[in-house]
């Protein structure tokens, strides 16, 4: 536990030691703003809510931005050779995997948290359901965690950050489009029976994100994100064990 905290602190401080953190946060907030006010029609809708105008864009936004965080997690360590330094310290592999993921997740949380002026705005303008907004923030952060775990696993596969980015975007996209109505229709015409289509749908981030974002924190949705994070971090550890020497 102590080791995990020490590693976590180094990782998190690492984001702020370089312009990475500041650039990322600025771009994230800028894109959130543009999407909410320009494309989301926040004012035109005339509703005191953040759902349609703000949170609805997060699944798409994260597909590009989350792999930008995750791509360097392991690829950079392997490229620089520092992985050898790290793994000969008296720490375990689960501690390393967990601390890297948690630091990235907390960093994503900080960026997300900095959108709070929107929440202030909507409260100033009207009388929104703050429970739903809180649930949406939780959903958004959980979704970021799922994408990050996938991205971390992909990052462990390669020394090249560009490859890590492109592959992570693709994988994240795959887990998103399962839930799109168009893909569902297409699948329904190919796959026999509704059970399979539903099974595929249940793997979509979109399905579970929208479910929580409606304001109902269902255990099934929490279990889904927790499982995705758990499975990909486990794979991450295996990949590191196999590929660290390459």
């Amino acid at each position, binding site marked *: 536990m102590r080791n995990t905290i020490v590693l976590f602190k180094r990782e998190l401080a690492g984001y702020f030691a370089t312009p990475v953190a500041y650039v990322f946060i600025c771009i994230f907030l800028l894109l959130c703003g543009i999407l909410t006010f320009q494309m989301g029609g926040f004012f035109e809708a005339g509703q005191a809510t953040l759902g349609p105008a703000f949170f609805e864009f997060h699944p798409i936004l994260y597909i590009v931005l989350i792999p930008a965080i995750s791509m360097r997690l392991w690829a950079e360590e392997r490229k620089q050779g520092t992985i050898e330094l790290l*793994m000969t310290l008296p720490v375990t592999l689960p501690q390393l995997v967990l601390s890297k993921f948690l630091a990235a997740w907390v960093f994503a949380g900080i960026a997300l948290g900095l959108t709070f002026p929107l929440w202030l705005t909507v409260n100033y303008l009207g009388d929104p359901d703050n429970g739903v907004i809180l649930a949406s923030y939780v959903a958004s952060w959980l979704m970021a965690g799922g994408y990050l775990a996938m991205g971390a696993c992909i990052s462990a596969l390669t020394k090249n950050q560009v490859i890590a980015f492109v592959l992570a975007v693709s994988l994240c996209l795959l887990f998103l489009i399962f839930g799109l109505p168009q893909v569902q229709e297409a699948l329904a015409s190919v796959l026999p029976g509704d059970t399979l289509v539903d099974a595929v749908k249940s793997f979509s981030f979109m399905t579970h994100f929208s479910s929580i974002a409606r304001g109902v924190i269902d255990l099934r949705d929490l279990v889904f994100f927790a499982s995705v994070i758990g499975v990909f971090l486990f794979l991450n550890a295996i990949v590191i064990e196999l590929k660290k020497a390459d």
Partner: protein
Amino acid sequence: MGAMIEIENLQKRFGAITAVDGVSFTVERGTVLGFLGPNGAGKSTTMKMLTGFLPPTGGTARIGGHDITTDSLAAKQLVGYLPEGAPLYPDMTPEGFLHFIAEIRGLSGAKAKARVAEVAEKVSLQKVMRQPIETLSKGFKRRVGLAQAILHDPQVLVLDEPTDGLDPNQKKEVRALIRSMQQDKVIILSTHILEEVEALCSRVIIIAGGRIVIDCAPGELAAKSRWHNAVRLELAASEAQRVRGVLAEQYGAEHVETLASETSGTSLLVTTRDRRPILAEISQRAQKDQWKLDGLHVEHGRLDEVFHELTRTGSRN
């Protein structure tokens, strides 16, 4: 308690390639062990297994009695390691980096701070403690790597090519540093530089093709040379013919070599099969026959030649 490091039949295969093929040795406290071998001989791989980075394919090693495969955390606590090329986090400052290492090594608060300052002083890093590591010169970076390795005052220090890529002054500094740390520790260092082994090590292991080809003291290594105790005579070309004849008669024609000489004269090199000292015999003969010699020298053996011989064949000694 047994030896500090016990390595038993250590093996590592990468697919079809066998990088380390059954290496066994033990090292006692107070030893500075030089690990020599051509590139790709298996030096780094052996070190990576010893420090717990790579799991062995076969065999095992114990550090202070802790098995590196089953009790790796305890083994890692006893070891300080400088990986090849001294990889570091370029964005961190030496201060931040060393503080991180101190915390991971179980020190915290004032203790960690004091120890970081102490080590920084030992490797003369004080002036650059707050600069990002990427802006430092190679010599300073290597010192940060060394500082990281010695921070917890480990009983075993594993240094993979600690002086590689440094200029002669920096090499000298790093060697002085290693020498200052050798008491009560085990230091294992790998190098290509033969003089470094003579200057630093109390024991040398040469590895080639994943196997140990020799394990001895550096002094003994020179004695293995074909040229150990050989006698070199410098003389005028006109004289060489006659002297060569006499020497060939006594020591056998195949043991008298004519060397290209840097001066106008010629050099003759006389060797013997059993490498016995022959300087006295030859100088007596020279006086008796009144050879006109410009110089008479004893060779002590050439490490590079021994190294070449041993690693070229790659056979077990």
